[in-house]
């Protein structure tokens, strides 16, 4: 056979696991000092301008998108494989260990006879020394079994399972997080209050879909109601909509949504993100017939003199197919995320089939007459909510693995496995107890405690025998 190690043996290497753990830690630490392109592209550009060569190096190795970079993902995949292999190894080891503690082989007895870790002299007159030794070990809260001239004692048997459970959970956690990331979608939808949007890709303003995402639910989400500052008892919860989830016309769920109180349905998790104003603007013919209604979404913008960012919509001439843009601005009377006392400005952009025109300071009912005799009317000035919709099946499994892993870790730490084997040896030199101890955590005091308990038991007896 060749001396080359198989790839699996490399991955099982304990040193590799440690290097991966520390490597991922160091990579992440460096990454926190480098602006991430996906999060803040402006900051990333400024960083590149300021630290040219260093920024180029960071970009070359992928530190500008550190947590999706091939280097990082490779390390995480290797760590997952190493952890699962380690979990398998520990499971096999635990299985063997659980069997060994029940059945003591001849080899173990021979080792106890030849190379004991602890020797305790038994006074010659001592009656039933094994029973006394068993009593001493029982006092250390160990479960004791006596067989012929051998005593085995064990404690924290469950502790043996802790490490495999922890490693399985951790390995599977990395796998589930990875799969979940590939199969999830997250994005935001702006919905004017009183209206609804279908959960399809087209409804999203910003959408991030994993490469294995199965497709959107097609359910209808309605912003049924909205409070600018919802009070939950005495606690301010901030801007909060009531959302209703429909399948066709069937209501699936209706709930007020605010931080820490998302709407949950199946794998969907819907949070309140932001809010803005949404004027309702209608287009009326010269005869007064309403032929179009639009609800543009206007965002608050503290850097703008009006307090909002402009929005708009298009008017399409059915006869020619040409379109004219209508720019909508909302002027807030004071900086603040409220539409009270706000006014609307409408501007028909040049380039369409309508002539440029505009009107400012419009309140409810205010109009802008167009060149073709039609009228744009501000019907209402309400809010819209921008909700965050995450579709991720993996979350409950992640929670479950976190809980199971923590239980495994706690059991391994709090209930360490302890075992004692004790053989009564009688020969020409007298009677002795030959003892081996093991402690899964390697507690140096365990052997000392066992030795002290045994010696105390027999010394007491020796002393009392002397007095008799």
């Amino acid at each position, binding site marked *: 056979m060749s001396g080359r190690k198989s790839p699996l043996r490399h991955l099982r290497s*304990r*040193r590799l*696991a*440690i290097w991966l*753990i*520390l490597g*991922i*830690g160091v990579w*992440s*630490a460096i*990454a*926190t000092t480098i602006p*991430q392109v996906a*999060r803040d592209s402006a900051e990333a550009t400024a960083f590149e301008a300021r630290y040219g060569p260093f920024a180029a190096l960071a970009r070359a190795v992928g530190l500008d998108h*550190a*947590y999706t970079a091939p280097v990082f993902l490779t390390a995480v995949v290797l760590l997952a494989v190493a952890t699962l292999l380690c979990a398998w190894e520990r499971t096999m080891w635990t299985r063997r260990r659980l069997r060994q503690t029940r059945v003591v082989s001849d080899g173990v007895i021979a080792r106890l006879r030849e190379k004991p870790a602890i020797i305790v002299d038994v006074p010659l007159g001592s009656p039933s020394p094994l029973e006394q030794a068993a009593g001493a070990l029982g006092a250390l809260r160990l479960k004791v079994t006596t067989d012929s001239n051998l005593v085995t004692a064990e404690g924290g048997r469950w502790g043996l399972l802790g490490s495999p459970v922890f490693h399985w959970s951790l390995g599977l956690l990395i796998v589930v*997080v990875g799969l979940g990331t590939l199969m999830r979608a*997250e994005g935001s939808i702006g919905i004017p209050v009183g209206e609804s949007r279908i959960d399809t890709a087209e409804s999203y303003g910003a959408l991030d879909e994993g490469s294995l995402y199965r497709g959107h639910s097609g359910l209808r989400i309605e912003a049924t109601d909205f409070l600018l500052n919802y009070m939950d008892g005495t*606690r*301010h*919860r*901030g801007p909060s909509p009531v959302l209703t989830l429909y399948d066709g016309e069937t209501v699936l769920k209706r709930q007020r949504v*605010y*931080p*820490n*109180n*998302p709407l949950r349905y199946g794998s969907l*998790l*819907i*949070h309140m993100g932001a809010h803005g104003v949404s004027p309702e603007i209608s287009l009326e013919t010269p005869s007064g017939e309403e032929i179009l209604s639009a609800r543009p979404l206007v965002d608050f913008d503290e850097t703008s003199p009006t307090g909002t960012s402009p929005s708009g919509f298009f008017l399409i001439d059915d006869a020619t197919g040409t379109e004219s843009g209508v720019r909508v601005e909302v002027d807030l009377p004071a900086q603040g995320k409220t539409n009270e006392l706000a006014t609307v400005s409408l501007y028909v952009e040049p380039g369409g089939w309508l002539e440029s025109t505009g009107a400012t300071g419009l309140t409810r009912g205010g109009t802008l007459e167009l060149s073709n005799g039609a009228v744009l009317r501000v019907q209402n000035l309400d809010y819209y909510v921008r909700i*965050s*919709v*995450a579709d991720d099946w993996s*979350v409950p499994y*992640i*929670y479950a693995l*976190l*809980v199971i*892993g*923590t239980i495994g*870790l*706690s059991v391994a*730490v709090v209930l360490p496995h302890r075992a004692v084997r004790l053989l009564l040896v009688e020969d020409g030199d007298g009677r002795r107890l030959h003892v081996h101890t093991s402690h899964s*955590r*390697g*507690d*140096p*005091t365990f052997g000392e405690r066992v030795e002290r308990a045994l010696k105390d038991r027999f010394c007491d007896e020796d002393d009392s025998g002397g007095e008799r």
Partner: protein
Amino acid sequence: MTSETLEILAMWGAVTAYAVGGVLYALGALFRRDRLLDLAFWISVAGLVPHTAGIAARWMRVGHGPYIGYYEAVSSLAWSTVVLLGIIAWRWPKLRVLGIVIMPISFLAIGGAMLAPKAPIELSGTLASWWLTIHVTFAKLSYSSFIAAFVIALAYVLRERRTSGAIADLLAKLPDQARLDDLSYRWIAVGFIFLTVMVGSGAIWANEAWGRYWGWDPIETWSLISWLVYAGYLHVRLTLGWHGKKSAWYAMLALPIVVFALIGVPVVFRSIHGAYLLGY
């Protein structure tokens, strides 16, 4: 007397007790007086009375626990560290002398907190969750455990190097080296459980509050780094057999990373988690 005045007076009482405790520990070590060391311990622990009263008064006044803002977060960390000294001394009386390291740390922490702005920061909608209590409680438990491990590891290393003098005499009162090595490891193992719960509960809370359980925010990332560093410690100890000096040095070098994650990161990086420390 208003509750705010009571709070400030109580907190200064705690500062004084911790300062006196720290000084008496130093004098006890210098002049090799066991009585001074005992007195130092009891005065330090007595400082918990006004400290607890101060925290309670603020809790009642502002309506939330000591989680938000530098003053609350760091002062309560000092409180949990002194409580930890009491627990250690109760469980392992010989380790009482570790107060010589713990008390200066606690004094500096509470002193620093007293110099920080004390205006109450209201709990935002995102922070108002019972996950906050779980997350913060386990954070304090884990940081306190790592501080204990650090102090024990420091004692181990010092005793390896000092064989004579006042410090050596003081260290001689501690259990033997093998026991110290094991205790340092045990505190880290327990702290690692607490840290795991802290990171896990933080992830669950983030999902409830923001719709994502992990966003690579600097504080999230540094809490993961802390977790990886201590996972590395447990690995090198349990699989490569690092014990004694190597293990002690690792325990000592790991703590600054955790402290940076708690206090340094919100100051250095702009983070959505910054509210808990800086109130933005």
